[in-house]
């Protein structure tokens, strides 16, 4: 697969090259708009890192019969609001991984538009909340035979705040749509400020919909198991935390990027106070 590397900032519109891995380093400056288009019948991967401060309006369109995987890492250590809209057209598939691992205070509003039959979305989010994150993810199914699986794994450190609203909305006429969510939050604060609000809005029959949410402290049995193999309590907690975060890198089929990200995530977890 070809590799394309881009350094972008403020207002940009980009059409992705077919059969390529496109790495984009994007800097938000004030109010910024970034539009990414995956044309019809194309395939490939995108690795997008975001930095800067302000508001980012991100639009991603996966056109008919296009098959893409995308990893978005928010690396802004500052105040950043992100409004995202992903549009999946007929038979479009998107494997999306989202990493929120920075020190910044962020607000996110993400909408997945499943516009036509065969649109297939699979999302894995990993968040290491080190200050404050307020996030909302909505999957809107406009047509039948669309599918969305949205999984979020989050770690909330001591003294930090996390709000997650996650919505699956199957519209009238979207017969045969599937919308599923799994949200798991591990708190390192005994008095956590965490709120997870899953919601399913169903306006059609013959559909599949589910949500599973768990919010809790680190599992004592898991910690005990790892300790029984010689890992200290702090090493055990780090490993369990990495288990929440590292699987997002699997979406990118490039060993060099995977290795770099794995090291970055491991470093961030090592630097954070998990005890």
């Amino acid at each position: 697969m070809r590799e394309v590397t881009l350094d972008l900032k403020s207002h940009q519109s980009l059409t992705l090259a077919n059969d390529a891995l496109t790495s984009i380093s994007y800097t938000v400056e004030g109010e910024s708009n970034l539009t990414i288009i995956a044309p019809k019948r194309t395939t490939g991967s995108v690795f997008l890192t975001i930095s800067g401060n302000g508001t980012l309006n991100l639009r991603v369109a996966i056109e008919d019969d296009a098959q893409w995987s995308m990893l978005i890492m928010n690396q802004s250590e500052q105040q950043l609001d992100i409004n995202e809209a992903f549009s999946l057209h007929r038979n479009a598939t998107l494997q999306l991984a989202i990493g929120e691992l920075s020190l910044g205070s962020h607000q996110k509003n993400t909408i997945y538009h499943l516009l036509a039959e065969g649109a297939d979305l699979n999302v894995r989010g990993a968040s290491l909340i080190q200050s404050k994150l307020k996030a909302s993810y909505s999957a809107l199914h406009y047509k039948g035979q669309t599918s969305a699986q949205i999984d979020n794994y989050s770690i909330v450190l001591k003294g930090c705040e996390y709000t997650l609203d996650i919505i699956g909305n199957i519209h009238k006429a979207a017969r045969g749509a599937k919308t599923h969510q799994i949200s798991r939050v591990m708190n390192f604060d005994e008095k956590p400020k965490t709120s997870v609000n899953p919601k399913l809005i169903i306006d059609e029959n013959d559909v599949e919909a589910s949500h599973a949410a768990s919010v809790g402290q680190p599992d004592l049995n898991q910690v005990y198991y790892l300790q029984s193999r010689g890992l200290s309590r702090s090493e055990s907690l780090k490993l369990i935390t990495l288990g929440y975060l590292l699987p997002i890198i699997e979406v990118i089929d490039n060993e060099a990027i995977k290795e770099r990200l794995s090291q970055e995530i491991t470093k961030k977890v090592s630097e954070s106070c998990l005890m």
Partner: protein
Amino acid sequence: MSQLKIENLHVAIEGKEILKGVSLEINTNEIHAIMGPNGNGKSTLLSAIMGHPKYEITEGTITFNGEDLLSMSVDERARAGLFLGMQYPQEVSGVTNSDFLKAALNSRRETPIPLFSFIRLMEKAIKDLQMKSDMAHRYVNDGFSGGEKKRNEILQMMLLQPKIAMLDEIDSGLDVDALKIVANVVNDMVTKSDVGMMIVSHYERFFHLIIPTHTHILIDGRIVMSSDASLVNRIDTEGYDWIAKETGIDIIKEETVRPVVGSIGACAANEPRGSKNA
């Protein structure tokens, strides 16, 4: 030469006394079979030795090579040379077996194990246990069958080379062929390395493959009888009732509520806490 010495051990869970004065001594090259009806304290004994936080030691001592084991944390006990192959191995999603095992090996070393040496060790263990080659890259016990989880416990034991290894119903979930493979590995370890074993099992067939040097019967939190391997055969043919009659100790009937071994309390993904016959 290592020695695990348990004296007059009393253990309670949530205020209920489970072990009522257990004394045992396990030395290098010995294989101790711990047998007894369900719910009479076998797993509690092994978990208490390993240091599970739910088990409260109310009386007695455990020393390992003369050192007070009870003052050590779970990981200190492991690094000192104890190993517990668990009845219900935990799943740790997102953590690969190889990362986990590397971390476990490195916890015992001054400098990290060279990657090549680690791969060689891991590949040999996988081959000896006839496991699937992809298991190094799979998440710890996640999506493993019952038999795969048990083999994974044995794989960890092989790599960590403990001085005293405890196996808690490691044979349950294994088919006949897998049982033989695991037994061969255990026998090989006992022959070639300086290890002592404590093995809990219900099935005499496991103790035909791994011949114990000592057999103990645990009923109502006490070791009521100790002998050699011949005791295994008598249990196989006659059960435990004769022991209860001879010793006058009532067998505790197993409770149907099992401890929850799942992940953090998922409302829809996991079984509810304390679910019956989970």
